[in-house]
């Protein structure tokens, strides 16, 4: 299935080849979990802070079991703030 992966701020450096505007379309295994999709990217755990699926936050303990669906948008930010 295909989904959209977005990585922002200091995580931009970990985007796979072919990414544009901080996002890339990925082919992943059917019903892959959030953790399974993120694992090959080798994101530093300390920087894998805000993990959103379709804009909704997925807490760390749910990431290994949260299954993704066709067309989902998985977006990740390091710790950030502003105002």
């Amino acid at each position, binding site marked *: 299935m295909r989904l959209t992966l*977005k990585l*922002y*701020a*200091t995580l*931009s450096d970990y985007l796979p080849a072919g990414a544009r*505007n*901080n996002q890339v379309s990925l082919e992943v295994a059917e019903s892959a979990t959030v953790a399974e999709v993120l694992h090959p990217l080798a994101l530093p755990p*300390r*920087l894998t*802070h*805000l993990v*959103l699926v*379709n*804009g*909704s*936050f997925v*807490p760390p303990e749910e990431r290994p079991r949260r299954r993704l669906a066709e067309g989902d*948008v998985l*977006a990740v*930010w*390091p*710790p*950030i*703030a*502003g*105002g």
Partner: protein
Amino acid sequence: MGWNRKVLRVNLTAGTCTPEPLNMAWANDYLGSRGLASKYLVEEIDPKVDPLSPDNKMIMSTGPLTGTMASTGGRYTVVTKGALTNAIACSNSGGFFGAEMKFAGWDMIIFEGRSPRPVYLYVENDKAELRDATQLWGKTCWETEAAIKKSHQDPLIRVSSIGAAGENQVLFACIVNDLHRAAGRSGVGAVMGSKNLKAVALRGTRGFSGIKDFPAFLAATTAAKKVLAENAVTGQGLPKYGTQVLMNVINEIGALPTRNHRDVQFEEAGRISAEAMHEKRPTDGRTHLVSNAACFGCTIACGRISRIDETHFSVRNSPQYWGASGGLEYEAAWALGAANGVGDLEALQYANLLCNEHGMDPISFGATVGAAMELYDLGILSSEQIGLDARFGSAEALCKLAEMTARGEGFGRELGQGSARMCAKYGRPELSMSVKSQEFPAYDSRGIQGMGLTYATSNRGACHLRSYTVASEVLGIPVKTDPLVTEGKAELVKAFQDATGVFDAAGICVFTSFAWTLADVQPQVQAACDGDWSMDKLNEVGERIWNLERQFNLAAGFTAADDDLPPRLKTEAARTGPAKGLVNGIDKMRPEYYKVRGWDANGVPEKATLERLGL
């Protein structure tokens, strides 16, 4: 001791400058800056006073940590009755002006009355005098700062000034210091203009002394700086990306107000984000961002210094804008961009430059343009009335309206009254996205429920810097809470409001709170200031400040009915994103909040609450 224990009182009507001792009993109750200046204001003016009359006063104030080696200890505040809001106003600015006030030997400057002609205040240590500013009237903030430095042959003078917006009493005029830092909100610049006060120029050569326990202060500030440096937000994220890093995440969660809050997601958010500031432009191969920058004593350095594209239509024939200058920050980029549907980064930078140059709050200006664009879209305003085609998304309209508002030309005069007055004039008051006549900042409260309560109850009108629950609801600081529910938000908002009051009163930047808690601030205050400054006392100071401001507003005529949101946010559900189908639950949160605050059902502090706080 933290404080210099000295106030400068400037009577503009009489033309006198008089030193007086700082009221230390009040300092003990309100700490400094926002808190202490608010106490002075409450004691000295009638809350019902016309903000633009000589009877209003304007106070520039520092905190006990301003000018010290505490990280971010460069803040100062402007406290007055706000021209935009008719509520108590406290606008906070960084840069170097606040520290210079301390170096000159003062804690606070109180301006009263109205000068018969334009003047500026010049302070050199103990010497303080009003000087003629007839030749400066009409000049921009940038020109004014340069002219004063040249006149005194001293490039180290620090200047806060108003531009044409403040002179013309644009109701969201701000006071600009150090070229691109500003006491931005609530129209404090209009109050300054009403007093015929063009600028305040400071030169202090005394440095800073009087820390109560210097070894303890050195240890406390060093430890606190280590916390900032090791935190991923304050040590890495903010220096590299600045506040604008929020653009994409707030859009992703469906809380980026777009086209006057019609939508909660902006399809061009990526084009005006921090990441876009780092990308090379196709026109000249340069990145928009030139460098980050720090205010006095700051070890975060979140400020942005950028360079506009010289080929952009807005500046093609205006080389004075081609150099590096301040911006864009998140709030300005949102208000000038998403709020109007404009995705042209260079146009936003140009409008932001005009705001800095002429002294306008880009949040209220941008949001007012958004309201005008909706009136235009609905056919209530015509292109003949506005003087141009003001459709949503028009970068050309944004740039032209910024010029017109800054100069007080044509429809710009109506924009300069802010969205509440403009929308009321055209029979659609509900289209002003504001609370207490102050426009919302960059978070849609349908997608971040706690921010609805934050806005509705903010003592200075809609504002994110009175209780930044975004930190918890979205960013997970200090703990993650659910942005889509109302449960627990009353307690959360109160906690943020009270803590923020302490950060402001101390004279430090609220951005430290992304890494610090009050437990990091407390040892610094304790070591700097005479007296006992326990955690319990600091918490009480924060709550006291909030209730003092509340009492002023109640006496000024505000009621619980003013603690509310525009109907759009309560009846028109978000159309996309995680908040799709949701409105803000302010009517549920408000009574819970009053109860948590110790206020009655009408939002009036109970007698027991006032007695507990010594009010």
